[in-house]
């Protein structure tokens, strides 16, 4: 899923008093906004900084906690009218929508924006449009195929109709992504569009320099607050500075001198060392928000390779895991929660608690040893754990060594195979070369069980000659049918229950060993007000923040 994080819970209000308009908000980020073309962005819920400039058909509800996982209308009047089988979705645009230059936003612009994202020049977005729209799999974008996509109809300037190949109850969630932002065809400059995209949101791009490193956004006078219930746009100016190290960002946020007092970050977490420091300081601790984002870090098996073809060996691994040391390696109990389910522990995704192979806090080495013996390895078993050498807690060496240590205690002899990040990605996602055991992670593209479970466990999504995410090679007709059935449901709560049940069922096969769900601690400046952290992104929402 997208590298970004998601969130929930304990948001706090910064400095007291009601939020007012005005001032400059500084955003201190690590990753530069290299991609600022709505076609190329791969975001969850329209992203953070991008959603200040791009409005989409629907958007995420800007509210604290679980409320924030709801999808709400943005440019459209509602979240979409599905046909009975959820294969045709119809949207109507609100009245009075304008671009930054005052020209009106039409449904044709939205169609064009989506079509652009099919062009090879503008690759980078999610796979869903291609998979879901009729004709999407072969469409090459408007530069090569002027005719456009027939499966998107614009009967008039305010209506847009999507024709899907199969039932997709989650379509309103997809419509939150930036590909659903309008792009006026006359202003399209292809790959150069990102340098100055035409704003439909509350801010327009004044400056975009250093390959997205410095982004200066100013109020868009033609944005009408009346048509946008979600974004507040309190500050007059938003100054996004990126390319900073996380240490620098957190240090500056905590010191908060000058412009840094009115600063936030949309991509940087508090690291373990910083957390240890912050928790000692009451004032600082009150400026930390906690976020959750649907994410699971797990061990993936290749059940087609020895010795993991034997379920007993896989279960032995599951029993042996010491989740305390794994959680510590990932930054401690404040930054990670031990996981026994594949679905993240969030209701909107349908989380149903289960623990099929209870390992306790520190692993059940005896049980694992017994299982190994049963499987015919009384003298232990030599295995290799593949991980990336990138210095992160997701697939990096820290968690790998923690896993190694626990497995060694349970009779395994674990060899670590650390690969350079690109080599790691290539290898673990290749059906041919996939290692027997490796560190993996998965995040949701939107807060629903579908994008979380389908790519990993849907047998029809095993990709032979490209990136494969179904590492467990599960191709079970019953699972596939259930996925199809849930996708037809447009009632989100009903769907969530069934996703949860499906997860618990698949879990019995021990195709993965869930390790932990990350938790995000976000520090913000001392003058920042109206802090909102939703369970959708896990990040403090820039569109809500005020600095006066």
């Amino acid at each position, binding site marked *: 899923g997208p590298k970004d994080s998601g969130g929930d819970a304990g948001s706090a209000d910064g400095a007291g008093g009601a939020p007012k308009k005005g001032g400059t908000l500084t955003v201190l980020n690590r990753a530069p906004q290299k991609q600022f073309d709505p076609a190329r962005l791969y975001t969850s819920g329209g992203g953070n900084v991008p959603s200040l400039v791009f409005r989409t058909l629907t958007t995420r509800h800007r509210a604290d906690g679980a409320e924030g996982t709801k999808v709400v209308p943005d440019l459209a009047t509602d979240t979409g009218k599905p046909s009975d089988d959820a294969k045709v979705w119809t949207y109507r645009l609100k009245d009075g929508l304008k671009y930054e230059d005052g020209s009106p936003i039409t449904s044709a612009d939205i169609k064009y924006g989506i079509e652009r994202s099919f062009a090879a020049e503008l690759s980078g977005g999610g796979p869903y449009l291609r998979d879901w729209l009729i004709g999407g799999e072969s469409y090459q974008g408007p530069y090569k195929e002027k005719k456009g996509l027939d499966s998107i109809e614009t009967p008039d300037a305010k209506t847009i109709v999507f024709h899907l190949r199969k039932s997709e109850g989650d379509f309103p969630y997809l419509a939150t992504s930036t590909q659903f932002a309008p792009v006026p065809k006359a202003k399209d400059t292809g790959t150069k569009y990102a340098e100055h995209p035409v704003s439909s949101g509350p801010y327009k791009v004044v400056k975009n320099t250093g390959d997205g490193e410095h982004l200066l956004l100013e109020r868009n006078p033609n944005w009408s607050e009346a048509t946008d219930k979600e974004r507040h746009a309190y500050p007059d100016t938003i100054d996004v500075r990126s390319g900073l190290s996380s240490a620098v960002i957190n240090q500056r946020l905590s010191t908060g001198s000058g412009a840094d007092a009115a600063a936030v970050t949309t991509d940087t977490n508090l690291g373990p060392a910083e957390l*240890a420091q912050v928790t000692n300081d009451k004032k600082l601790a009150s400026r930390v928000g906690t976020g959750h984002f649907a994410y699971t870090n797990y061990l993936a098996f290749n059940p087609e390779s020895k010795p993991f073809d034997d379920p007993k060996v896989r279960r032995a691994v599951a029993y042996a895991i010491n989740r305390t040391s794994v959680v510590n390696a990932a930054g401690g109990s404040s930054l990670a929660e031990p996981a026994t389910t594949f679905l993240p522990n969030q209701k909107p995704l349908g989380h149903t608690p289960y623990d099929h192979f209870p390992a306790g806090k520190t692993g059940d080495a005896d049980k694992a040893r017994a299982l190994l013996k049963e499987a015919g390895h009384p003298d232990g078993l030599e295995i290799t754990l593949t991980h990336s050498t*990138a210095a992160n807690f997701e697939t990096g060496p820290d968690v790998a060594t923690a896993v190694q240590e626990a497995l060694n205690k349970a009779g395994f002899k674990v060899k670590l195979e650390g*690969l350079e990040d690109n080599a790691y990605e290539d290898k673990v996602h290749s059906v041919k070369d996939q290692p027997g055991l490796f560190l993996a992670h998965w995040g949701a593209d939107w807060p629903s069980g579908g994008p979380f479970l389908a790519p990993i466990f849907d047998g029809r999504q095993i990709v032979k000659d490209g990136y494969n995410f179904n590492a467990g090679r599960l191709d079970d007709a019953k699972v596939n049918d259930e996925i199809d059935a849930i996708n037809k449901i447009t009632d989100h709560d009903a769907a969530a229950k069934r996703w949860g049940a499906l997860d618990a069922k698949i879990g019995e096969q021990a195709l993965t060993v869930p390790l932990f769900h990350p938790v995000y601690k976000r520090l913000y400046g001392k003058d920042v007000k109206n802090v909102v952290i939703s369970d959708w992104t896990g990040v403090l929402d820039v569109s809500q923040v005020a600095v006066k």
Partner: protein
Amino acid sequence: MTELLTVPTGPEAVAAAPASGTRQVWRRLRARKAALAAAVVLGLLVVLALAAPLFAALEGQDPTTYHDALVDSARGGVPVGSFGGISAEHWLGVEPGTGRDLFVRLLYGARVSLAVAVGATVLQVLIGVAVGLAAALGNRIADSVLGHLTDVMVAMPLLVFAIAVTAVVPEGFPRPLLLVVVIGLIAWGAMARLVRAQALGLLNLDYVSAARLSGASTWRIARRELLPGLAAPVITYAAVMLPQNMLNEAAMSFLGVGIKPPTPSWGQMLSSATTWFRADPLYVVLPALMLFVTTFAFTVLGDTVRAALDPREASRLRVGRQRKGGSS
């Protein structure tokens, strides 16, 4: 102790430096307390590194065991207790997040750091001397080709290529060896220049002409007449390069292209420690101190050897590159 750094002030060139017998050099070296101290420190380090398992057993710890109880999970995994969790069991405390024993990890780290530095330096010297000698002795074409090759190597930013090369090499390749090869294969340009300049200087001396008159082959001349004369500057410069290589290893590990965990190396320990400088200062200070002390000792020793052998600043030798032939 001021004479430690006294620089040779005589105008005589290295090549023409008085033939100081090995014994004389030894005597001069031993007379310097600083050199002696540095040698003792380095000797101690080598012993510690070689006998790391022994010391680990003495402390009763090993470099990989996790001690979850010794870190405060809720506070990012900071060690429990004061001074990074120093205790009777853990003499220098434990690593945040994992609770692994720091003392043992430092000792094991010494093995990698020292081995990589020494290995890389040996490789650099071998390549540098071979290329430098070949350029000095070969014909004009060989000299120009090797000269340009050396220029390429000098212009090559080590870290850039380290990043690229470490990504190319198959994963099975042992990391420390890889680092030795990468550093050794890339950073020999300066040594080659030094050797070439020195050798050209020596070639201008009449005793080499005399050797030619005696009918000696080029190889014999290189072996008998040049190599002994090159030994002093090469050894001295190698002493300067060695700590540099240790820092290269540390820098590469710091940027994530060097030694990979769980193998500890000082640089890699330091790189994961940097963020902890406020929460657990000892975690940062220990590897930094080890690195500093070692580099310092090598620098002092190298400097003294340099003074004892009476060479001049190596950098001066790259300037005013002499061409062949030369006047008498």
